[in-house]
Each structure stands twice: as structure tokens, then as C-alpha cells.
């Protein structure tokens, strides 16, 4: 389980630090790859740009995706993930500050597997990250990715 990578797409360094801290506090010791904008996230997934040469056979176990991102926003990233056969079945959890109904609807319509609003209170946030880890890393069974069939 430890070698399963978590891709965290997050532009805010505070949120990044807090998310990593919450993961650590919950004993989730998987490698966390952080992409700071939408383009970087896609580069990692499809082994382009700074991540050229990465083995695309290896896909993250789950993507934690913020919506408000520089360059490409979360919805666009999600749309690209779903339109590429290599990442079509990749579990994507939207982890965002917004509780707006329009974001929820658009998120699920773009193909999100889950939508978790980040609580303002850190205690609740730690708890939410714990539940996420438990569910997506332990309970949930991913569909096999095309490269591994």
C-alpha cells in the first residue's frame, strides 16, 4: 500500500502543507506527488513537460483535485483525464473549499468519483482526510487501468 502514489493537485501552499499534515497525522504514509496547477497535473499523468519519461503504466491510486487552479482549472483537468483512455477510470476526488451547488453539479457531471468540501476547522479537515484515506486507499477497489490489462 505504501507504494501507491497519491496525486494532490493544490495551488495554495498553506492548504498543501495542511493536507500533508493531515495525511501524516492519519498515518497515511503513501508517496504524495503535488502538482501546483492544472497543467502540471496533466504533465505528471501523461508524462509530459517536467515529468517527461515517467512510466505512464504507473498511475496514482487516487487524485485529490482542487477546483480553483491557475492555468487550467479543476473541471478542465478532470475533463482531460476522462477523455484520455489511459486515465479514464482513474479515481478522482474533488477536494475543494467551495460548497457551491453549481460546483457540485459540474464536478459530478465532469466525471468526479467523489466531492469533499474542505472544512474550515482544521480538526474537521483532519477527520475528512482520514475518512478519505480509509475509503480510497483501503476500502475502494480501483478498476484496472488499460496498460495493466
Amino acid at each position: 500500500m505504501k507504494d501507491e502514489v497519491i496525486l494532490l493537485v493544490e495551488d495554495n501552499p498553506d492548504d498543501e502543507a495542511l493536507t500533508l499534515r493531515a495525511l501524516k497525522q492519519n498515518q497515511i504514509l503513501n508517496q504524495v506527488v503535488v502538482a501546483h496547477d492544472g497543467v502540471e497535473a496533466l504533465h505528471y499523468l501523461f508524462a509530459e513537460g517536467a515529468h517527461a519519461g515517467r512510466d505512464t503504466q504507473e498511475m496514482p491510486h487516487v487524485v485529490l483535485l482542487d477546483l480553483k487552479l491557475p492555468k487550467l482549472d479543476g473541471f478542465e483537468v478532470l475533463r482531460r483525464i476522462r477523455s484520455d483512455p489511459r486515465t479514464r477510470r482513474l479515481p478522482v476526488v474533488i477536494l475543494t473549499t467551495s460548497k457551491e451547488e453549481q460546483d457540485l453539479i459540474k464536478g459530478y457531471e465532469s466525471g468526479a468519483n467523489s466531492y469533499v468540501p474542505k472544512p474550515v476547522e482544521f480538526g474537521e479537515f483532519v477527520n475528512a482526510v482520514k475518512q478519505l484515506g480509509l475509503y480510497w486507499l483501503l476500502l475502494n477497489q480501483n478498476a484496472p487501468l488499460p496498460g495493466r490489462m
Partner: protein
Amino acid sequence: MPAAGQQSLSRKLTRMSILVSATALLLACAAFVAYDLATFRQAIVRNLSVQAQLLGSNSVAALVFNDPESATNTLAALRAAPNVVSACVYSANGLPFAEYVRTKEVSPAPRAELGEGEEERHWFRRDEVMLVHRVVFQGKRTGFIYLESDLQTLGERLKRYVMISIFVLLGSSMAAVAVSTALRKTIVKPIEDLAAVARSISQERNYSVRAVAQGAPAELSVLVEAFNEMLVQIEQRDREVREARDGLEHRVELRTAELAAANKELEAFSYSVSHDLRVPLRSIDGFSLALMEDYGDKLGEEARGHFERIRAATRRMGLLIDDMLELARVSRAEMQRGRVDLSGMARSVEAELRKADPGRRVECVIAEGVEAEGDARLLRVVIDNLLQNAWKYTSKHASARIEFGQMSLNGSRAYFVKDDGAGFDPAYAGKLFGAFQRLHGAVEFPGTGVGLATAQRIIHRHGGRIWAEAEVEKGATFYFTF
């Protein structure tokens, strides 16, 4: 179009002129004929009287010398007077002396008498006139002359008069038709034109046409001008109405566009609030907690208290943002109207409140079957806010009573939520529904002051009204209508 049975004006005018001229002519003819006949009868009588005098003079000798043959010869001279039917000479004692008849069938009338002192008398009988004349010779009454004349000439004269009258009537009727036809041009034609214009206007709603007054008599010209003036006014009013409507439509379009822009701005604003205002709060809370967790043992009791205050403030800020977003959401959310079971809603809110605060002793009286027409999601927010308020402001009392129901108010239906809690000073009732306005301190009763503003916004969007009545420590009642 004239209704059936109605006659056209020109026909009426023709008939009228014929009737007037015929009546005038008839009356004139009748008067003239009556006068003429009377005069003519007098002339006949006078003529007869002269003949009687002549006959009397000529018969004196025959009467005196008792020579009837001579008298008969004298009477025979009457052959020259065709209208004398019969004549008779009587002796002084009233016995017939000599006779004349124009034809054999006519028998002379029996003797006639004159009154004492009467010299001559005449009388009419059917179509005849009779005359008796006394013959006097040297102051002595010698005999009578009796004459009987027919009135044939009078009848002929009358027949002629009737014929002439008929011809004159016919002629004058024709002249009346001709005159009324000529008058048609000046009187009837302008009226008919006016009627045609009025008809075309009422059918085609074209108010730009005008009636022509040229050649019409003065009164008709006034009528036509008044009619045209009326058309001008109608046209002008029509134009004003159209312009006002166009202007209004334009203004509505403009306002709608402005409103849409404002709505869009508000949406963008609240979206950005939802994201951006919460992010730093999480950092403040998160790193405060991280500091406490990592360095808590190195910090004093006071420092830990400060951190608690920072975190409490963060939570409060988070609540404020949530409530503000809720207020913005209910303002712009699309309404989906339907029948809403308010009683059911109130019961479900009550259950939530009891679950969250099981220790409270609150009697909730919720009326059955209270329904309203509106957006279920938004109305749920109203019921939620009002019952939560009632629950909150009765919390300082050992036991409380909260009531939800409906009542009739000035003929329309009003809903109410009533509690027996802290209430408020009615002097500040005006501030109650303003956003972030509170009548109690946050320590006394927690809250952001947005709940009632949100409820009011929703009620206003339903076209209703919300207001409150209260007294300090005697509870509050919130009323609302749709």
C-alpha cells in the same frame, strides 16, 4: 350599416318634402274651392232671383187679365236658360196659373208659400235650388213665381277643380322629388360621407382618415370638423399610448439587462467568497492548531488561551461566510413553485432541534395540514430559521412553548411562529430583519444576524410580508404571508 327597417336619410327627406308640399297644396285647394263654390252658389241664386223678377214683371199683365196662355208663353222663354228645370206662375191665392218644365219627367213642385212680409225665399235640396218670388203690381200682391234650377254647373265646376288639384299635386310631387334630389347633394351627401368614414374607421381602426366638410351646410360643417377633431385626438392619444408602451418596454429591457448583470456579478462575487474567503481561514485555524499540537507544551496557559480565541474567531468567521452565502443563494436561486406541506416541514425541523439538544423541555404545538404555494427548498429555510430562533431564544427558560400555525388576517391567510422566550424590545423591531443586525449579544445568544434577513428575502421573493410582535421576556411571534 343601417339596421333593417331603418330608412335612408335621402328617402326620408324626399317623402317629407312630398308630404309637406302635398299637404300645403291640399289645404290651399280646399280653401280656394270652398270659397269659390260658396261664391258661385250665391251667383246662381242671384241669377235665379233676377230671372224670377223678370218673369214676374212679364207675367203681371197675364195675371191681372187672367190670361194663362200669355203667362205660359212668357215662361217658355226659359228655354234659353238650360239650368232652369221647372217654373210655375201662381195666382195671388196660391193656385198654379202657368207652368214650364224643361223635360216631361220633371213635375213642378207643389205650391210654396212665403211668410207675411217676405218678398223672396230660396232653399237648396240635394242638387237643386228652389226660389219663390212674390209678384207685386201697384202695391198689390198679384201672384208668385216659382223657379227650380239644377246645380249641374256647380258639380261640373267641382269636378274641374278636383281634376286640376290632382294634376297640381302630381306636378308638385314630381317637383318635390326633383328638389330633394338637388338638396341631397348639399345635405345628405356630406352626412352619407361622414357615415361612410365613421364606418370605415370602426371596421379598419384607421384613425388617420378624415371626413370632408366641403360644400356642406354650416351645421354639418361643424359636425364634420368636430368629428375630425375627435379623430385627431384619438390618433394623438393612440400615439402617446404606443410611445409610452414602447418606452416602458425599452425601460423594462434595460432594467432586465441591468438586473441580469447585477445578478451575474453577485454570483461571481459569492462564488469567489465561497472559495477565497474560506481558504485563509483554514490556514489560520490549521496552523494555530499545528502550533498548539507541536509546541503546546512549551507555551503557557495564557498563550494557549489566545490560540483558543483565534480558533473561535475563525469558526465564527466561517459561520458568517456560510450565512452570507446562504443569503446570496436564496436571493438568486431559481424558484420552483408547488404545493408545500409546512406542517410536515415544521415537524421535521422540530425533530432535528430535539436531536441536537435532547435536554431541553420544550412543548411544540404544530398545527396540522398547514400548506402553502411556493418553493419547497426556500420555504424550508424560512421554517428552519424561525423555529431555530424560537428554540434559541427560549433556551434561558426552564420550560418553553413554541407554536406554529395559521390564521386569517384581514381576509388573507397568515402563518405564525410563536414562542414564550426572551422576546425583544418592540422599539427595535425595525432592525430585526437587517443582515448582521442583532438585538442580543453573541455571548447571550449565539448567531450571525443573517437568519431573519434570509427569511425575509425568501418571503419577499414569494411576494409576501414578514413581521414580528414581541415584548421583553414575554416571547415573540413572527408572522408571514405569501
